[in-house]
C-alpha cells in the first residue's frame, strides 16, 4: 500500500523535478549585449510624455536631446559659447531685441519631410501656446501666448527671427533657445495627427517627430525605450541602436553590469560603485549636476525669520559628514545657489559645524534654549537620510526638529502653499544659464499670497525687492564678464543672509563596462549626448 502511495508521490516529485530541470535547461539564449547595440540600465519612471513641448523631467529631457535638433546648443567645454545645431549662423539686432537665425540647407526630419524655417518658428510657437510645464522656459525671454505668433516669425525658408520683450543677455537668450522646449518638431507630420487644435500633442506624447541623431523605435512605459541611429543625419551617431532599460533597483543595475547584460548603469549606489571599481568590471565617471539640495526656511515662522537663527542652522549642519556617510558618490558639498560649471559660480563653502557659534547666535536671537520646528521630507534616498542627520545636528543647539515624511508631490504641494516650516528639497536648472537658479532663489517680484510667480524665495515668504532688482539687472547685462561678477556678488550676499541653507550639489555617476566610451554628460540631462558613444 505504501509502495503505491510512494509511486504517486514519486510522480508528483518527478514533475516538480522536471520543472526544476527546466531552470537549468532554459539558460539565457545570449550572453552579453549585441555588438552594435548598447543597453543602458536606468530609471524610466519619469517618462510621462515624449512631447518636447510637455517634457520637464530629467531623463525625458535626455531623450529629447538625442532625438530632436534645436537652433543652437551650448558648448559643454565653454558654457559662454554656442554651436549651431540647425542654425548655421545668427545675429542680434542693434537694439538687442531681435535674434535672426540662418538655417543649414538640406535638413530633413526622420519622416523624410524637409526641415524649414517654418518648422522652427511653428515649434517654438507651439510650445508656448500649449502652455505646459516646458513653456515656462520660453516664457523666460518674454514669449507669451499673446505675442508668440508675432515675435517668432519665419522670414524665408531658411531664416527665422525671434524678438524678446526686453533686452536680455545674449548668452541667456541662446541658452533658452538651446534648451529642449525649443526643439524643432515636424509640423507637417504633427498636423496630420492634430486633434481638437492640440498641435499633435496627444499623438506626440507617445511618438516622435524629430530630426536628431537617433529616432524612436519603441517606447514601453516603465519598461524600455529603444532608439535607432538616423543614418540620414548629417553627423550620424556611432552606435546603431541604444536601449534604455528600466531597472528600478540599483542592485539589479549592478548585476546587469557585472554579467554584461547592460553596458552602462546610471543609478548605482555608493557601495555598488566602489565594488565594481574594485573588481575592475566597470569604471565610473562623475559629473557634477546643475541640481542643488537645500533647506528652505519659511520666514512666515517668526523664529525662522530671524537672521541669527538662519545663520545658526547653517553653522550646525555637518555637511562633510553627511556627504561622507550618506551620499559619498552622489552629492558633493556646495553652499551657493549657482552649481559648479555655471557662469559666475563661486566655490565658497564657508559653513562647517560650529556648535558654540550657533548657540551664541541663537542666544542673540533670544532663543538660548532653541525652539521647536517641523521639517517636510519627501520619502526615499537621500532626503530621509539627510533629514535625520540634520535633525541630530540641530538638536545639539536645542533646535527640536519634527520630521514630517510624505510623498514628493505631497510635500511639494505644501511647500508651494507656503505651509511648511522647513522644507528639504532639490532645485534643478532648466538650462545652464545662471538666471535659471537666480530666478529660483533670488527673485520675488510679488510676495503676496496671490502672486503669479511662485519661485523659491516666494515659497519661503522672503521679500527681497533689492535682490530681485539685482537679478533682473544681471539678466539684462550683455557682458558675460560683468554678468559673472554680478552673480558672484549675489551669491556672497545670500551666503551671509538668506533663508536658504544650500548644502549639496548632485553628482551624476555614469558606470560603464570596459570598452564603453564616448558618452558626453553635461550638468543637465538636456546636455547628455549619445552621439559619440561606442563600445568595443
Amino acid at each position, binding site marked *: 500500500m505504501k509502495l503505491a502511495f510512494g509511486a504517486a508521490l514519486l510522480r508528483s516529485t518527478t514533475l516538480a523535478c522536471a*520543472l526544476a530541470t527546466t531552470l537549468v535547461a*532554459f*539558460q539565457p539564449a545570449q550572453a552579453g549585449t549585441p555588438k552594435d547595440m548598447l543597453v543602458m540600465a536606468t530609471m524610466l519612471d519619469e517618462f510621462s510624455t515624449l512631447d518636447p513641448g510637455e517634457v520637464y523631467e530629467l531623463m525625458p529631457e535626455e531623450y529629447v536631446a538625442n532625438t530632436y535638433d534645436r537652433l543652437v546648443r551650448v558648448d559643454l567645454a565653454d558654457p559662454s559659447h554656442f554651436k549651431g545645431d540647425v542654425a548655421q549662423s545668427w545675429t542680434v539686432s542693434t537694439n538687442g531685441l531681435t535674434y535672426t537665425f540662418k538655417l543649414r540647407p538640406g535638413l530633413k526630419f526622420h519622416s523624410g519631410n524637409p526641415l524649414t524655417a517654418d518648422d522652427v518658428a511653428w515649434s517654438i510657437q507651439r510650445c508656448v501656446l500649449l502652455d505646459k510645464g516646458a*513653456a515656462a522656459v520660453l516664457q523666460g525671454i518674454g514669449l507669451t501666448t499673446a505675442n508668440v505668433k508675432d515675435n517668432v516669425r519665419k522670414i524665408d525658408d531658411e531664416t527665422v527671427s525671434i524678438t524678446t520683450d526686453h533686452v536680455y543677455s545674449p548668452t541667456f537668450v541662446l541658452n533658452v533657445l538651446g534648451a529642449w522646449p525649443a526643439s524643432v518638431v515636424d509640423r507637417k507630420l504633427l498636423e496630420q495627427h492634430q486633434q481638437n487644435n492640440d498641435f499633435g500633442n496627444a499623438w506626440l506624447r507617445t511618438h516622435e517627430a524629430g530630426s536628431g541623431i537617433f529616432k524612436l523605435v519603441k517606447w*514601453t512605459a516603465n519598461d*524600455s525605450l529603444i532608439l535607432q541611429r538616423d543614418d540620414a543625419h548629417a553627423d550620424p551617431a556611432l552606435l546603431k541602436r541604444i536601449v534604455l*532599460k528600466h531597472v*528600478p533597483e540599483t542592485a539589479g543595475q549592478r548585476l546587469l553590469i557585472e554579467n554584461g547584460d547592460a553596458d552602462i548603469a546610471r543609478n548605482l549606489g555608493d557601495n555598488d560603485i566602489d565594488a565594481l571599481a574594485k573588481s575592475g568590471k566597470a569604471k565610473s565617471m562623475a559629473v557634477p549636476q546643475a541640481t542643488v539640495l537645500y533647506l528652505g526656511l519659511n520666514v512666515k515662522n517668526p523664529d525662522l525669520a530671524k537672521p541669527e537663527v538662519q545663520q545658526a542652522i547653517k553653522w550646525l549642519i555637518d555637511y562633510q559628514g553627511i556627504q561622507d556617510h550618506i551620499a559619498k558618490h552622489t552629492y558633493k558639498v556646495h553652499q551657493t545657489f549657482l552649481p559648479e560649471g555655471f557662469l559666475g559660480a563661486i566655490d565658497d563653502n564657508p559653513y562647517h559645524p560650529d556648535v558654540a557659534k550657533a548657540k551664541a547666535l541663537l542666544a542673540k536671537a533670544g532663543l538660548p534654549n532653541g525652539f521647536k520646528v517641523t521639517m517636510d521630507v519627501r520619502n526615499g534616498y537621500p532626503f530621509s537620510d539627510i533629514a535625520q542627520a540634520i535633525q541630530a545636528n540641530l538638536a545639539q543647539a536645542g533646535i527640536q526638529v519634527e520630521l514630517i515624511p510624505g510623498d514628493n508631490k505631497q510635500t511639494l504641494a505644501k511647500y508651494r502653499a507656503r505651509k511648511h516650516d522647513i522644507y528639504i528639497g532639490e532645485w534643478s536648472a532648466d538650462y545652464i544659464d545662471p538666471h535659471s537658479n537666480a530666478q529660483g532663489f533670488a527673485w520675488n517680484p510679488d510676495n503676496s499670497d496671490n502672486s503669479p510667480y511662485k519661485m523659491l524665495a516666494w515659497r519661503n515668504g522672503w521679500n527681497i525687492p533689492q535682490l530681485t532688482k539685482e537679478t533682473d539687472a544681471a539678466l539684462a547685462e550683455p557682458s558675460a564678464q560683468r554678468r559673472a561678477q554680478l552673480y558672484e556678488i549675489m551669491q556672497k550676499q545670500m551666503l551671509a543672509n538668506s533663508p536658504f541653507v544650500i548644502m549639496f550639489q548632485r553628482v551624476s555617476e555614469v558606470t560603464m563596462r570596459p570598452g564603453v566610451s564616448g558618452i558626453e554628460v553635461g550638468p543637465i540631462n538636456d546636455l547628455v549626448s549619445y552621439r559619440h558613444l561606442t563600445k568595443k
Partner: protein
Amino acid sequence: MTQGKAALRWAGRVCGWVLTLAATFTGLLAVTFFIGRKVPIDPVLAVLGDHASASAYAAVRAQMGLDQPLPVQFVLYVRDVLHGNLGTSLLTSNPVRDDILRVFPATLELATLATLIGILVGVPLGVVAATRHNRAIDHVARFVGLIGSSMPVFWLGLMGLLLFYAKLHWVAGPGRIDPAYDGMVDTRTGSLLIDAVLAGDWDVFRNAMAHILLPACILGYYSVAYLSRMTRAFMLEQLSQEYIVTARVKGVSERGVVWRHAFGNIAVPLLTIVALAYSNLLEGSVLTEIVFSWPGIGSYLTGALMNADMSAVLGSTLTIGALFILINLATDMLYRVFDPRVRA
C-alpha cells in the same frame, strides 16, 4: 414543472451574482475614487512639474476636471467607466485600458506559473507531511512553510538573482526579455511565452522562459509554503476522522484512504486556498516585480500611486477587484463540481 423550478433557481442565482457584482463594483469604485481624491497629493504637479506658471497650473487643473465639485467628478468618472473609458494615465500618456492590457498579461503569466509550481510541489508536500506526521519529511515541510512565510520576498529575490543569475548563470537577469529579442514577435495574447509559441519563434521562447523562471520560482516558493501548510493541516484533520478508521478497517488501500477519501474531502477547502493564493499573486507581487524589473500590474499600480496618477490607480484597482470577484465566482462554480452537497 421540475425543469421550470430549476430554471427559476438558476435565474435567481444569476441575478444574485449580477447584483453582488454590481454592488461590489460600485463600492470599490466609490471607495477608491474618494480616497484617491482626498489624499494630499497634487496630481497637477505630476503633469506640469515644479517650474510651471500659475496660468498653466490653473489650465491643467481645469482640464483634469479637478475644479469641479467632488460628487460631479465622481458621476463623470462612473459615466466614463460605464462607457469602457478608464481615463488616460498621466504617467504613460496612454489610455489606462491599453496600459492594463499591456501590463496585466505580464503579471498573469508570472502568477500562473508561480501558482502551478505552488500546486505541483506544495500540495503533494502537504499530503506527505500529514501522512508522515512528526517524521523527518513532516519536519522538512514545516520548515519549508516557516521559511516561506517569514522570509521577505524582496531579499529572497535579490539572493536568487545573485546566485542563479550572477554566479551560476542558470537564468537570465531582470526584465521580461533581452533587449535583442524585444519586439521580435507580434503581441497577440500579451504573454510572451504564448506569443513566442504562436509565432514559432523558439529563440524568443527560450529567452522569455529564462527570464520568467526565477521570479516564478521565488513567487512559487511562497505558494509552496502556503499550500503545503494548509494541505497538511486539512489532511491531518481528515486523517483523524472516524470514517478514515472505518475505511481502513474495511480494507481500503492506504492510497485509496489518503487520496480518495481524505484528499477527496479536502479538495473543496483547498480549492478556496488555491484561488486565494492565485488572487494574491495577481495583485501582491509588487516587490517581486520591482526586484525583477517585471512590467506587471503591481509595479504599474505602485508607480501610479506614487505619482498621484488617479486614473491609473482607479483602473488598476477596478481590474484587480474584478479579478477577485471573478476568481471567487469561478471557485463557487467549481464547488458545485467537487462538492455533491452544493449540487444537491
